[in-house]
């Protein structure tokens, strides 16, 4: 009954898209089989939103100052990430705010500066921009500008992120690039439930304000065995998911799964051995792991849904060509969204799907 209820609520917020003609290839989530041993304790089957709930549950249980707030979090949230927490921990700890992102983040900064572990939810990453001033001008600079007398390190901002099949312009955005240009904050994007819980707990524990983007298309689709107790996955450490010798693939969030398939296709059809890296923390990013890989393979492909111009692939590309110039066998390739707003009906043409990435691999191999 609960599953039906969840499914029907989900359909209410995510109405199914009707197709005419070509079907959208279904995005496939590939669970971590290679999962580095993150925690020894008991595990439970959880999807991505449940793994987030679990992280928040652990946090509220262990930290009496912790509070969770944002639009509609009290009843459980539009993506079910906070279900049950208000009943369990009280209405002074899990509460709705008025509809005002600049207020949510400003409030969170103040609460964190006054010593509370403040976990703010922005309903969609697409709506984070009213809070841009509070994040960039305030949160990121709080410690620096006060000579370390004050800080808002106890602030974590969570937001659903990325394409979802029908989200269109204002429910599909990946805005990480706007924030990577801002020293003082950390930006993290998980690829699945196990990663999400560990990375979110690290963000909450981290003494710097963090933005945690949750790939919304994986909320229900990604299911793994997730440890029920608290555990942390280190920030600023990229993860090599698959070792290879011919070409390095870098992505974060949903796109990691796309590149997993691309790596399999490259092996099968081209005999090309790809090394796959999940960046995980976008700021500050793990240059060492990526550069070490490119020194070995000589080729780099970076892929993200966000538009290519000014997207974070540009930063990675620039650093890698500085550090690994003489190791490069081919120009660094970026397979990203086009420089347009995220379209509705044209989503299948817009996204950097496995075929576009595969073509880029072929070009690089044949360069």
């Amino acid at each position, binding site marked *: 009954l609960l599953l039906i209820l969840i499914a029907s609520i989900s359909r209410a917020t995510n109405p199914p898209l009707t197709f005419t003609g070509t079907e959208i290839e279904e995005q496939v989530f590939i669970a971590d089989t290679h999962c580095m041993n993150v925690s020894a304790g008991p595990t439970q089957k959880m999807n991505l939103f449940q793994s987030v709930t679990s992280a928040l549950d652990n946090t509220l249980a262990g930290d009496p100052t912790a509070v969770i707030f944002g639009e509609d979090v009290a009843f459980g949230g539009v993506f079910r990430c906070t279900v049950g927490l208000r009943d369990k921990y009280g209405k002074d700890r899990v509460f709705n705010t008025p509809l005002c992102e*600049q207020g949510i983040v400003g409030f969170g900064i103040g609460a964190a500066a006054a010593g*509370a572990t403040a976990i703010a939810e922005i309903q969609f990453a697409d709506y984070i921009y009213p809070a841009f001033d509070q994040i960039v001008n305030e949160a990121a600079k709080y410690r620096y500008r006060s*000579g370390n007398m*004050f800080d808002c390190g106890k602030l974590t901002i969570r937001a659903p992120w990325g394409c979802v099949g029908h989200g269109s312009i204002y429910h599909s955005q990946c805005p990480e690039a706007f924030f990577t240009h801002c020293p003082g904050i950390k930006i993290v994007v998980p690829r699945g439930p196990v990663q999400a819980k560990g990375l979110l707990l690290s963000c909450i524990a981290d003494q710097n304000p963090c933005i945690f983007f949750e790939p919304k298309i994986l909320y229900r689709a990604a299911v793994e065995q997730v440890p029920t107790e608290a555990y942390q996955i280190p920030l600023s450490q990229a993860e090599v998911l698959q070792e290879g010798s011919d070409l390095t693939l870098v992505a974060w969030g949903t796109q990691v799964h796309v590149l997993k398939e691309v790596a399999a296709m490259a092996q099968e059809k081209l005999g090309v051995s790809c090394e796959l890296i999940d960046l995980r923390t976008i700021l500050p990013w793990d240059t060492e792991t990526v550069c070490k890989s490119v020194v070995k393979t000589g080729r780099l492909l970076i892929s993200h849904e966000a538009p290519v111009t000014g997207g974070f692939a540009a930063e990675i590309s620039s650093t890698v060509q500085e550090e690994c110039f003489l190791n490069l066998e081919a120009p660094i390739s970026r397979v990203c969204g086009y420089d347009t707003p995220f379209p509705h009906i044209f989503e299948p043409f817009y996204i950097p799907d496995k075929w576009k990435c595969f073509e880029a691999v072929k070009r690089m191999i044949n360069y």
Partner: protein
Amino acid sequence: MAAARGLTKLYRIGLHAIRQNTTLKATTFLQQRAFRLNGALRQQPFDSSAEKPQFPGASAEFIDHLEFIQPNVISGIPVYRVMDRQGQIINPSEDPKLPKEMVLNFYQKMTLLNTMDRILYESQRQGRISFYMTNYGEEGTHIGSAAALEPTDLVFGQYREAGVLMYRGFPLDLFMAQCYANADDLGKGRQMPVHYGSKDLNFVTISSPLATQIPQAAGAAYAVKRENLNRVVICYFGEGAASEGDAHAGFNFSATLECPLIFFCRNNGYAISTPTNEQYRGDGIAARGPGYGLMSIRVDGNDVFAVYNATKEARRRAVAENQPFLIEAMTYRIGHHSTSDDSSAYRSVDEVNYWDKQDHPISRLRHYMTRAWRKQSRKLVMEAFEKAEKRLKPNPELLFTDVYNEMIPPIAKQRDAMWRHVQQYKEHYPLDLYEK
């Protein structure tokens, strides 16, 4: 006629809220407010036979004729004061009857602030510091409100509240150190002058963007409320900053989330060159309070006792009732906006002179003034000033620290690159002015 009725009703409600006898009525008010809240949470059972609106969004009555509510711009919310312009107490029951030493301290702090402002403004003119903002005319708002708080109350300011910090005991040396960005600056030389901060004195470091502190103050007050100690948060801002979206956010959040918070608006007539009639069309900032569900009052900001009384009572009730209060302190910005401004470009010298000569917070306490104190305060300030001038700037290493709680490799790399570069081109960099 009906319009007038509606008007007077609103006015009466406003007055009633202001004039409530605090001790007994505070409890009844709390009970009434709790009842109203519960009513909002547990919606009354829907009964369409009753001739009363059933809407969840408002608990009003029906009205059968069309009338617009008139914004009360002509005779708005009255201005509470204790002293007249000659410093005479008007209503003896409102005299806070503060001990003589405390009143003397008010006067000394206001004149010390005034003296420091004169000297540091001049020092900018002489090229010694890069920038300065004076507090002329607003000393009463700082000292009166600061005196009504506890030292542990957290202060969020905008940039024209140096008197609050001074009242709490921030030494002249540290004011100077921040303005000179020397190695004694608690902020490690990272911000323009007047962006003070002090963890020990619970004064959150100032930032340039306007009104950003307002929702932050609401969040801090919420955290303070959960701690359950006798603490309040106060948030200062000007009437111009109150136009920012962050102000709306902060007011609304503080009311809905029931935060023990005092919003203190310094309405000084100008936002740089923009006069109030170009900043808003309603009845100032105090009139916005009821729209958010905030207890609100307008006071004479040049009357240090009125400011004190209002802040003291607001503090008491904010802590006791966990609700925010809005105080709009009317005053006048006698000085320019900053050293980058020449206000003669947009206002008359006569206007400024009126406030300087005839309605000044320090003048109102003039009968406590002695000539000896003014001379002595100048001496104190000059000593601190000379010391600050000579002091070296902080080590340029501090350019790179505190971005994160600990140093990260990419920033360390940039730091090393800077030093290598500066070593190579050292004659082009003023290394002698900085600590090694």
